[in-house]
């Protein structure tokens, strides 16, 4: 009863959906990596901020820019580190939202793949009986 063409089409559909699913999974993995890097940077910057806050007003702060050690103002260094922490936190929030969205897409793709697989199985069973 089931034409081979219908089976082929279902197979193509299954392949497409499976490819989409693996792409989404790769995106999720990349998201995790970037997020790990940002988390580490955030931790380091917070440590630096704590150290800077322990300093007295006249303490000398230097920043390493390439091969050059440049004297910096304590207030400026504080402001820079705070800004960096803000930026990284914002990036992390953005990544969080993105990964949630990706996970939803992954789940719905999984369901779609399952449905196609079930239809194929039903079709194959129908063919076998006929």
């Amino acid at each position: 009863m089931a034409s081979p063409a219908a089976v082929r089409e279902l197979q193509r559909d299954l392949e497409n959906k499976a490819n989409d699913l693996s792409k989404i999974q790769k995106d999720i993995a990349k998201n995790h990596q970037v997020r790990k890097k940002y988390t580490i940077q955030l931790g380091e910057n917070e440590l630096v901020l704590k150290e800077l806050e322990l300093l007295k007003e006249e303490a000398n702060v230097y920043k390493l820019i390439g091969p050059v050690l440049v004297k910096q103002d304590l207030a400026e260094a504080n402001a820079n580190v705070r800004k960096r922490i803000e930026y990284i936190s914002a990036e992390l929030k953005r990544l969080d939202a993105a990964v949630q969205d990706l996970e939803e897409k992954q789940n719905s793709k999984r369901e779609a793949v399952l449905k196609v697989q079930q239809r194929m199985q039903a079709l194959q069973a129908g063919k076998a009986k006929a």
Partner: protein
Amino acid sequence: MASSKGPASPAVRVAEMEKMSVEQLKAVKEQTDLEVNLLQDSLNNIRTATTRLDLASVALHDLSLRPQGKKMLVPLTASLYVPGTLDDSEKVLVDIGTGYFVEKTTVEGKDYCERKIHLLKSNYDQLLELASKKKTVADEAGAVLQAKVKQLAPQT
């Protein structure tokens, strides 16, 4: 990254593992083994860092004992040293991270090292606890897996 096996007591965990098939159990054991290895690596990293900080602290203490003007050899590369004189052993530059350096006295520098070592020690203890918990779960999974395999074997 948090595992969901936290609040379950060992009896509950084993009961859940009994319900799983051999494949699932193998997957769980592999996953937990992987996590244990990662945690061990982190523990080693912390140990290395703590040792380096310790060395830095000792070097600082030694430096503070040296008089000004003392002749010394300054490393320019790993194999090239240049003769020089010790200028001011009171001030040291401390690398606090992300490219920032702070001028501190030797006492403050040693204090910095101590603080960092304390922080690392507490992190190490936390990690150790987590790692041993994971190891327990992995061992349980392994035991249940073996029992199941033995169960299946005589049936075939």
